[in-house]
């Protein structure tokens, strides 16, 4: 694991990710793994997008995280780094963009069709550490 990521984004950092209403189980309120299945069109090849809440309102997060539904899940950076399957260990690193200075990428989830089982497993484990985030 690159130590640089851990020093720039400590384990206790709270992270959020944009989700859809249908990615929340309406009975249990648990986050579904579909929220973490990587896209195959190349958009997730560098990692799965996340960010930090930074005290922003829902309206500001909707713009910064490009999520018109205004729904988000939260998880800790250290719990992402604790996810390991075989030789893959997830990491999360800062990846600021012009639109979102708090943008980060969850690294390690494969996007190729041949690794669908591993990607699904990792998505399941990411969903298990996530919960709904209600902005202030």
């Amino acid at each position, binding site marked *: 694991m690159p130590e640089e990521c851990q020093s720039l984004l400590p384990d206790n950092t709270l992270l959020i990710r944009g989700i859809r209403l249908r990615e929340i189980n309406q009975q249990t309120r648990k986050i579904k793994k*579909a929220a973490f*299945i990587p896209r195959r069109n190349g958009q997730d090849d560098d990692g799965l997008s996340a960010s930090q809440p930074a005290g922003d309102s829902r309206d500001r997060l909707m713009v910064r995280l490009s999520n018109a539904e205004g729904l988000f899940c939260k998880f800790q950076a250290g719990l992402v780094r604790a996810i390991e399957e075989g030789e893959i260990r997830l990491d999360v690193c800062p990846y600021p963009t012009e639109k979102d200075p708090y943008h980060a990428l969850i690294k390690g989830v494969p996007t190729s069709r041949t690794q669908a089982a591993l990607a699904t*497993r990792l998505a399941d484990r990411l969903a298990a550490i996530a919960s709904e985030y209600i902005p202030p």
Partner: protein
Amino acid sequence: MARLTLPNVPVPALAKSSSLSDESVVSTASELAEVLAQINNLAFEQERDDLGLLRPSYRALTACMKAMLDLARDGRLLRPSDIGIDRNGDIRISWAADGRETELVFPSDDQQEPYLYHSTPDSYGTETELSPPSVSKRIHWALRGQ
């Protein structure tokens, strides 16, 4: 939003030997219609949102409907725990209990065949053999552990 018009699909009664409760078996036309309608409704979503695809492809929808009807015809369709779609537009239908899960995935992508994902807290894998008996076996495994 259009309602699905169902063909007159005969659904055999649940075999007496099954140890699954009657409630979990899709055994009436209205129960089958409910499952198919949930899948059908995915096709009426907008094509995509900020996060990815929202609507399954024609290929994914037809493959999914066929698989569900094949299971129903054989009296093997149990009520899914969840019917949803991911950001690739893949339809995902799962059966889960006690940490076990079986999930049928129907990719919207033309280059990927439908497959079955199964997992427990300690293991996971995929299968591409999707005959009704194989799928049914995995669904029963997820719901009752055997």
